[in-house]
């Protein structure tokens, strides 16, 4: 057997992953916090105000990374969901289900910050702009997955049902995006580009990229933390979980 599948196979065993995730989590969290702090300093203090948008553009440093993360989390969820559906791996089910709330959180931030950015720029809190509309639809996709998972009593059955929904959603996502774009041109809605087509200045670019990296690291840290809880919930009756709880009680 190939070394990598073997290694993956070992890692997908819940107790091994539980310990592994517990060991890795602080590293991801702390690097996310440090990089995030640096990015905030660069974005809020060092970067000069935009010549068109003034200081309002500084919302970009959280809005854009969160918008990327909202899609990235969905993509991760769909991959885990596919693995869960095809191979029925318990860990994949847990990971797919734990991606959803993180993705929903990032989507929510994207929507609210977009609205806060849109008010001074467009003069309105909400506009049916193609990008914002797609993001709203994405939020509904996430809510559907979370709602379905919670509506089904049996956790594993719920996870597989919600995984199937996530897969239906990822087929739908590009269709939504293009249909909304088409709809927008049809109705001549605002096509204000918050992020200009022009080249972004380096002083603005590096904090942005740093923040993108920080949010990715945070996503992994949060996913590891959530997956640990999810595994414990699914495997609560197993021997390893019992030992772990007994250990905790002694400490």
């Amino acid at each position, binding site marked *: 057997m190939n070394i990598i599948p073997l290694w993956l196979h070992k890692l997908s065993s819940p107790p091994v992953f539980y310990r592994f995730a517990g060991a890795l989590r602080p590293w991801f969290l702390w690097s996310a916090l440090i990089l995030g702090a640096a990015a905030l300093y660069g974005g809020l203090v060092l970067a000069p105000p935009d010549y068109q948008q003034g200081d309002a553009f500084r919302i970009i440093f959280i809005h854009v990374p969160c918008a990327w993360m909202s899609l990235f989390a969905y993509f991760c969820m769909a991959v885990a969901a596919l693995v869960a559906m095809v191979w029925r791996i318990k860990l994949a089910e847990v990971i797919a289900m734990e991606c959803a709330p993180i993705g929903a959180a990032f989507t929510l931030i994207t929507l609210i910050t977009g609205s806060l950015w849109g008010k001074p720029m467009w003069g309105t809190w909400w506009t049916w702009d193609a990008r914002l509309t797609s993001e709203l639809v994405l939020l509904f996709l996430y809510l559907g997955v979370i709602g379905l998972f919670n509506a089904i009593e049996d956790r*594993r059955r719920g996870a597989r049902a919600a995984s199937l929904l996530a897969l239906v959603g990822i087929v739908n996502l590009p269709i939504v995006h293009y249909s909304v774009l088409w709809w927008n041109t049809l109705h001549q809605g605002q096509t204000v580009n918050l992020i200009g087509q022009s080249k972004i200045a380096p002083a603005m670019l590096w904090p942005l990229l740093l923040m993108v990296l920080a949010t990715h690291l945070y996503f992994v840290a949060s996913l590891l933390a959530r997956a640990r809880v999810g595994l414990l919930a*699914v*495997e*609560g*009756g197993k021997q390893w979980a019992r030992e772990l709880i007994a250990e905790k009680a002694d400490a």
Partner: protein
Amino acid sequence: MDNAASRLGQCAVSSIRAMPISLSASAAPILDVQGLAFARNEEPVFGPLDFALDRGETLLVEGDNGSGKTTLLRVLAGLLQASAGEIRFDGQPLAHDALHGQMVFLGHQPGMKNDLSPCENLAFLSGLYGAREGADVGSALAQVDLAIYADTPLRMLSAGQKKRAALARLALLPGELWLLDEAYANLDRRGIEMVNALVASHCSRGGAALLTSHGAVRFADPHARHVRLELAA
């Protein structure tokens, strides 16, 4: 050959081997189950179980409410996936697409529409599963004493009559292995005898049947070879 091996773990088994000749053409038992276990939300529901069922045999699964009889049947039918163990059908590891049509499954629910008559319901079932040679809907309903209700919507029938309508498929559909959940529920003495007669004739022709019962009704047919499997709660 030990054609009624069935033991291990929580199940107590008594096997009665009476039939002298083997009807089975192939050596492998029709159903061979090893180490079969099922857990829901990590709570074990039953197992691990080992048993084998040969052609011509009836297996009566007994147990209290909540002992996992229904779950066992659904696992065997392929509606649920076992958490551990192996099921072999005719010597082959279970591949459910291949098995479909060689098995008659009757669950708690009748699997029939209340707005349709027994006749229409059975016609639909045989449209999916086919019909045994020489069997038709009318004769199947006659076998369960339901001929006069053939065209009455199911909702007008009593619980026992509904059960009989559901059981009528046993006289109609092809399939070597019968999986019958609570086959005796809602039936009167005559109904119970009728089920036994259907099962006995099925087994005498080389079929096999697996029945569950919560123990209130004793398996009454003295001629059948049968294995008893008790599931502990």
